[in-house]
């Protein structure tokens, strides 16, 4: 069998099993929640829902009871949850009742995916190039500085850094307006509309994007690529290249950078898997109209359909993204998989 076919089948089996495990984790977590919690939730909804008519309240109640497994036989519950998990169909949302939660989530999704796809790819490339370059750098001051900067940035989560950024930009250097972004209707008929959307997007996304890129490019990716290159530089094939007098630039590109690509692509796969849930808090802090802000609204009134849709979506997203990258990008990067021995 061609090694790629084997690789593909292996990865796909792992995909299916991981999805199944993910589903079970989510199922059993919900079952582990004490049923008394459901009453508290219902009370909370009843309290704030003066405007709810009795019929709507009953429907919400029904959804909650079903989600927490208080109706039907255990097997029914399992199967119905299985269907809901993979179709993302968790019933009507509470915040925009009676619109289905899936529909609401999908409307916010492009914003989140767009932001994270953009920032992840940018910071991955930036961090890797920087890491490899610095491990070759002759100037010790610059590399020491970048190294220490990275160590300081590495452990800080995006959202804490975002708050620091907000503080800096709102008070010290007020160049960004901090007005919450609203979702423009994506109906583009003229060039003017398009321009408006782009400008709006830039405004809303610049600060969250900066906080993600700074932390992940100069912190995470820089450190991992620098560590990997330091190890790669002691590899025999790199030393042999230096003995042959190959130009430093070539060694950097075709030997070291090429060598760290295999582990770094796996890491990228994991990072890209997080594009559905990677920066929920940051999005909320900057009032960026993505899943984070939606989730915050959902949490306030205990909107389980929305929360569960986001959970399943991010679980399925992660596994699919990892599978895709592991299968196809790996194939391109590692000739040992591409060609049979």
């Amino acid at each position, binding site marked *: 069998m061609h090694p790629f076919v084997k690789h593909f089948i292996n990865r796909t089996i792992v995909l299916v099993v991981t999805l199944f495990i993910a589903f079970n984790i989510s199922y059993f977590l919900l079952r582990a929640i004490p049923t008394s919690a459901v009453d508290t939730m219902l009370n909370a909804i009843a309290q704030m829902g003066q405007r709810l008519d009795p019929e709507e309240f009953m429907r919400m109640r029904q959804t909650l009871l079903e989600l927490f497994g208080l109706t039907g036989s255990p097997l029914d519950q399992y199967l119905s949850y299985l269907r809901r998990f993979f179709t993302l169909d968790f019933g009507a949302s509470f915040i925009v009742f009676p619109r289905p939660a899936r529909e609401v989530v999908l409307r916010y999704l492009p914003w989140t995916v767009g932001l994270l796809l953009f920032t992840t790819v940018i910071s991955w490339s930036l961090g890797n190039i920087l890491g490899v370059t610095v491990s070759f750098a002759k100037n010790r001051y610059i590399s020491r500085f970048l190294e220490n900067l990275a160590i*300081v940035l590495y452990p800080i989560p995006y959202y*804490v850094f975002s708050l620091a950024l907000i503080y800096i930009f709102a*008070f010290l250097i007020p160049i960004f307006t901090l007005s919450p972004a609203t979702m423009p209707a994506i109906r583009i008929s003229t060039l003017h509309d398009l321009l408006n959307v782009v400008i709006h997007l830039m405004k809303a996304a610049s600060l969250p994007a900066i906080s993600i890129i700074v932390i992940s490019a100069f912190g995470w990716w820089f450190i991992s690529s620098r560590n990997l290159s*330091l*190890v790669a530089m002691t590899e025999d094939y790199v030393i042999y290249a230096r003995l042959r007098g190959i130009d430093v630039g070539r060694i950097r590109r075709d030997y070291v950078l090429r060598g760290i690509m295999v582990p770094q692509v796996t890491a990228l796969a994991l990072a890209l898997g997080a594009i559905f849930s990677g920066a929920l808090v940051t999005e909320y802090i900057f009032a960026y109209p993505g899943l984070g802000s939606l989730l915050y609204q959902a949490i306030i009134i205990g909107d389980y359909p929305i929360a569960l849709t986001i959970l399943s979506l991010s679980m399925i997203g992660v596994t699919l993204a990892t599978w895709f990258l592991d299968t196809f990008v790996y194939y391109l990067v590692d000739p040992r998989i591409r060609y049979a021995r």
Partner: protein
Amino acid sequence: MYINTRIRVFIDVLKSLSRYGRFRVGIAIIAILIALSLISLASPPRYKQWYVYPKDRPPQLTSSIDMILGTTTNGRSVFWIMVNALANSLCIGLLTALIGSHIGLLIGLLAGISRGKTELGFILLIDSFVVLPGLPILIVLALALKQSMTIHTIPLILSVIAWAWPARNVRSIALSVMSRDFITIASFSGIKFRSILLYEVMPYVLGWHLTNFINTIIWAIGMETALAIFGLSILSEDTLGTMLYWVLNFNALFRGLWWWILPPIVLLILIFIGFYLISVSVSTYLNPRLRGGVA
């Protein structure tokens, strides 16, 4: 005798660690933070109540220690909130690390020594938990368990996720140690498997367990903060996260109440950096290939 040599080894390790500048800075930061958090023991009981102080006062150096960092919009002393929040956050981090990283150690070791189908099962379980998004899972859990949360149960909730990274790390370390020659020789020479595990494998794993432990503290404090910002922590208690929640909730950011905003941000950043510096020094010590030196 045995214990004695162990202590000597431990002191030697500390000595060589303290040669790293990063380790010393990290220890200094954490020591200062712990000292700060100990002040919380002296906090006056009324600091928890709202409106016992004037609202929105900037820091005043002249009057009592209560006002040294100003007050919040709900009339509380920022200084007392801060030291208590710090103590609680550190406590959450430490408890989660105690629970989560040890579960990780156990599962990682079990995964490392098991073979065949059990091993495959362990790998899939660990990898799934590593890959699956932690925050959304914790949000759903916390959403349901909001009512019954205390400083001591949050670590339990966090541990549902926290064990996975340590387990993965411990497994790979255990595997690489067991593939080394001295283990093969030990097992050929008829030493019992249990004592091989205890005396030959464990010393290696324990070093990495320490970095896992520290990293779990960092992770747990970060996660609690994230949950709290969404309003899913114990809002009646003070943690660095809930402090940020109230900051955001009262729009302190836009009203310019910097004395309320900065303490939690600065403390969080210090916690992360302090612990991370220690963990980096330990892992550099354990993995000399990363000590570098520019070629």
